């Protein structure tokens, strides 16, 4: 089964009022178990914050809890190889990539998972890394 890894931009589109057809389609595939989806646990913290900024703590708690229970997404924890690879990426591209970006990219490369991302992150990914990374781009 195809492996995919979601970034916070894709989740941002999902949690928007007028989500795009592309994001709705991939979320439906995940729900139906047609793809094996992964996401860093840290990305859920970002999503919580983004929802909370507009809709408050109660709604953020409800939406994130429900999201986790509705979609079969494997939540990824840090391990030693990921720490070292992500650390290396951060050293090389600190001005462009956040810690979470670095972990997401390191995980996608290791698992040969397609990174499902928005153009916001993609613009920041250095060219040499991008050559090895398989990705699907979503527009805002």
């Amino acid at each position, binding site marked *: 089964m195809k492996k995919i890894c979601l970034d916070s931009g894709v989740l941002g589109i999902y949690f*928007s*009022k*007028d989500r795009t057809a592309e994001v709705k389609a991939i979320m439906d595939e995940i729900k139906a178990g047609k793809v094996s989806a992964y996401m860093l646990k840290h990305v859920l913290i970002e999503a919580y914050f983004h929802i909370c900024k*507009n809709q408050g703590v109660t709604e953020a708690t*409800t939406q994130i*809890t429900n999201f986790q*229970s509705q979609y079969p997404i494997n939540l990824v924890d840090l391990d030693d190889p990921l720490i070292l690879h992500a650390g290396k990426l951060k050293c090389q591209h600190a001005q462009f990539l956040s810690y979470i970006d670095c972990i997401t990219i390191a995980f996608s490369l290791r698992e040969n998972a397609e990174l499902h991302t928005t153009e916001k992150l993609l613009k920041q990914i250095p060219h040499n890394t991008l050559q090895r990374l398989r990705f699907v781009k979503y527009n805002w």
Partner: protein
Amino acid sequence: MLNALARSNDMMYMEPKASVIVNNRGMVTIPKNIRERFNIHEGTRVVFMEIDGAIEVIPVRTVEEMEAACTIPRARMSTIIDDDREQELKLENDEA
């Protein structure tokens, strides 16, 4: 006195909104105003979670209810994420 303090600092003193008694089977009645506000009705599943020392009761929504609850326009969400990203990179790189 407590009310005055509550008004002066909402974060420190919060008035209880409702109080109910747990029965001998551990059951409580969720107050009507809360059921209405959160669309909790007969058959609604709820999740109990301990978060930061408090018990939170979170109603489980269907995918359709979840979609309806997302009210942030995409353009606004895009701005929130941009701002967050900029702040995050600044904080992370200022630390170093």
